[in-house]
């Protein structure tokens, strides 16, 4: 039986968070996938008992701090996204890779839409379609991770 260690989850979240902290600029900033959310989705699909909405909310707060925006924006976006992920978690793990990819794309877009809604309410401009590019790069990153052997379905092979 497979068992995910809590440390692994927190370590991967930390690494993802450091990826966010990297000095991105220009086009790279516009393309930067949401590393933290991808890692959270991954762990929610794989170990929902260890990583859940609360974890997502908490790390969302740190992302809020790093982006310098109003506290709670990313936290809310991650909460909503992980809720959708958790609700459909059992179906998701049974999906094929391609189906999962579409689902992850949807989740990433949900997160961005939530964020966009909050931002628009606080008086920001709509940025145009390029705003959703990180979702696309996020899915590409997900596919790359899957190709490298990361697997959301509970492995039959023991680790």
């Amino acid at each position: 039986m497979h068992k995910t260690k809590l440390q692994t989850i927190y370590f991967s979240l930390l690494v993802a968070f450091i990826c966010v902290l990297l000095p991105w600029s220009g086009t790279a900033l516009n393309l930067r996938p949401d590393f933290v959310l991808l890692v959270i989705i991954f762990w929610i699909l794989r170990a929902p008992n260890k990583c859940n909405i609360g974890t997502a909310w908490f790390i969302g707060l740190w992302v809020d701090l790093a982006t310098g925006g109003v506290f709670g924006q990313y936290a809310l976006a991650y909460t909503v996204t992980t809720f959708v992920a958790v609700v459909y978690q059992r179906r998701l793990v049974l999906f094929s890779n391609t189906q999962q990819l579409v689902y992850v794309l949807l989740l990433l877009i949900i997160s961005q839409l939530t964020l966009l809604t909050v931002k628009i309410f606080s008086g920001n401009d709509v940025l145009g379609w390029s705003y959703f590019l990180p979702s696309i790069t996020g899915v590409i990153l997900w596919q790359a991770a899957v190709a490298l052997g990361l697997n959301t379905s509970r492995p039959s092979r023991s680790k």
Partner: protein
Amino acid sequence: MAGYHQNLDQQQAPAFFARGPSPLARLAFFSALSLALMATDSRLQYLGSVREQLMVVLQPLQLIANAPSMLYDSTSEYFSTHHRLLNENQFLRKQALIQAISLQKMNALALENTNLRELLAANQSLEEFSQLGEILHVGRDPFTKKIIVNRGSNQQVVDGAAVVDAKGVIGQVTRTYPASSEVTLITDKSLTIPIQIERNGLRAIAFGHGRDNTLDLPFLPANVDIKRGDQLITSGIDGVYPKGLAVATVTDIQISADSPFARIVCIPTGGIENHKQVLIVSISQPDSPANSGAATHPTGNANTAAKAATTTKPDATQTAASKVPANTTLVVAPVPAAADINQNKKPANPTPAVATEPSTANKPHAQD
């Protein structure tokens, strides 16, 4: 539901607490918490210090994240070619020479200006002190135009300080953390900057456009005397930005029949997005005790000491500016607007013939 759930769940988890509260309950709880946080943070000022504390925790992580690019920078610097260094050296020498000449003139002019001002019993112009900072990274929020600079409240950077580089104004400090501060660029939608057209002295307020790196001059009538290529400089009446700094160049004027206002697009003069080093300059606040921050700072000391003999003052900022290559930025602290407002009372002069030179423009006013 529970049975179904256990059949599928192959997780190794304690039987009790397999899933805890339902997802919906969690969603409601954490969403409410987020909304409460957002409301608190945007409407009330409680979370400012919390944010500062947490930034201290974030600092080491930030260092780790910046390490690769720093390492890259330093290694590429190490392996930079002899030829390039020689070229740069030559260029800097030339620049230093040019600046030394203008500095001599500047000293004489400053002395003359002080004497004249004393004669006319006019207000002394404000002084500034500067410190060099470096951009840590660009703001991560795609909705705003911000940069993070490696000088913070520990280095006496204050909220509201203006950020200027060797070419012009680039923004204003909007948030200070212990070891870093957040600078909102003038192209940000939420930032406005009082400007003056260099050619005719017309005053206006420039608004950041937000989406592309431009500034707008809204609410100016369609027949306003602004031409393409006009230079915008800071008017200095806000008490935040020192007077006469380059802000932007007018690039496009659109006048449409259905609007009483002209649409004027300007491109910032300063290197909004391509500089690494920044120079932080604060204007000392003549009559306010709040200025003690600047006075305690090493460079601030030198400068406030120089207040008595104002002639040395431009020296301090000028040498600081000439020490660093062209890509530098100044941060200038806010000053009470009152000091400068009197000198700028002159109504906007629409005749293009009058060339308002910042230092001479004040003279006639002081008399009335």
